[in-house]
């Protein structure tokens, strides 16, 4: 469903992405990890065109992201995205956050949109928060609303950019639970995260990046069960984050 073919991106002399080739099939959950600045966020932001790239080809559901005639808004409406800092719209209520895209992009009526939003809010356990503003919710609640906002658009794939790294530790699990449920429902997901527990639980594959390159790209079992087969850079990284 998502296909990277030798994708490269650079800012001046700095290579943000260097010849990245990988693919994500329908229903697959792929965790992308790596040290900060390794290009993992840039990689997933290329998928919905939030980051343009200079070389290579990137296909989402058969549509080329690099082509100038691609209708980006239309493509983006099919891909849900969850950000590190939630990025809920602070001037709109939770319900308005959830219905804006449905009404303006998908052309649903207000009633349809409200109904859909309420149903999904119930599923993430935020039934009674619809009329509040984002600033009145905790970080964990805001991130669950953000996931719901993406799901309201009936996306065929979801991108997560470090969804739990801006959260207080006690709120991480409420967000991960929602993501695990989503993965188990068969959603196609690309997840940038350092939560290895999440990777172990639901990931099909793990990609490890460093300095804009894809260093490892293998099944979850291979990745965690055989550290001796990993490259030195990967082992060093894993030792740092797994020893605690």
């Amino acid at each position: 469903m998502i296909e990277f073919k030798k994708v490269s991106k650079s800012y001046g002399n700095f290579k943000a992405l260097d010849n990245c080739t990988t693919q994500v099939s329908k229903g697959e959950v792929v965790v992308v990890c790596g040290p900060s600045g390794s290009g993992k966020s840039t990689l997933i932001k290329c998928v919905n065109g939030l980051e343009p790239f200079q070389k290579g080809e990137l296909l989402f559901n058969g549509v080329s992201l690099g082509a100038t005639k691609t209708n980006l808004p239309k493509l983006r409406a099919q891909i849900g995205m969850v950000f590190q800092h939630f990025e809920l719209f602070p001037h709109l209520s939770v319900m308005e956050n959830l219905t804006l895209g449905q009404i303006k992009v998908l052309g649903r009526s207000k009633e349809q949109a409200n109904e859909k939003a309420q149903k999904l809010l119930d599923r993430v356990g935020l039934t009674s928060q619809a009329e509040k503003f984002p600033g009145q919710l905790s970080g964990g609640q805001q991130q669950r609303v953000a996931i719901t906002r993406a799901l309201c658009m009936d996306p065929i794939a979801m991108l997560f950019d470090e969804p739990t790294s801006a959260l207080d530790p006690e709120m991480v699990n409420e967000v991960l639970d929602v993501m695990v449920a989503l993965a188990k429902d068969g959603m196609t997901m690309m997840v940038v995260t350092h939560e290895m527990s999440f990777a172990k639980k639901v990931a099909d594959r793990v990609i490890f990046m460093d300095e804009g390159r894809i260093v490892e790209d293998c099944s979850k079992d291979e990745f965690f069960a055989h550290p001796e087969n990993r490259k030195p850079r990967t082992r060093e990284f894993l030792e740092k984050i797994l020893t605690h």
Partner: protein
Amino acid sequence: MGYDFDVIERSWVYLFRDGMTFSVTLTLLAMLGGIVLGTLLALMRLSPYKTLNIIAGGYVNIMRSLPLVLVIFWFFFLVPYIGGWLTNSNQPMKVGAFASALITFTMFEAAFYCEILRAGIQSIPQGQVSAGQAIGLNYRQTMSFIVLPQAFRNMLPVLLTQTIILFQDTSLVYVISSTDFLGAASKIANRDHRLIEMYTFAALVYFIICFTASMYVRRLQTRISIIR
């Protein structure tokens, strides 16, 4: 010779019905026009297209570098010719003093509103734009539903303060012989030889209006701020 404040009572109707109506109407219309034009200019200045940047940037810099009185004069003589040229007639178009003043103030204030709105738009984090785009909104929708509502709210106090200054500046229309509130007061003052009384009264009226308005802006600021 004593002071005669009865002159105020005698000229009350003229001062407010003619003078103040002119001042307030000009201020409100120029504010509306200025904000609309200013928003367009701000979007042009922030757009990725170089040509639009240069046009809007040039416009703003020219307007902000000229004295307002000069622009009022200049447009008063220039606008009829532009009007004639636009309507393809050989005669300069007849443009009244009010219309000329309105065009001048709208265009002049737009430069200032533009800079305020540009700062407001830039204060909205890039993540908000990305979030708007990520749910499939196009540029226009992202601007009108996500960025501008937040920018306006953040900038409303400054926009209104600029409008208070605009209200004071409308008194400059005396140079094209329009009668605003100050102009009306000035006419009465000269007619009845009550200069001190009338100017004191005019000063008091401007003070009360502008001071009340700025107090209101301050209260509004706390009421409409976005919950964070």
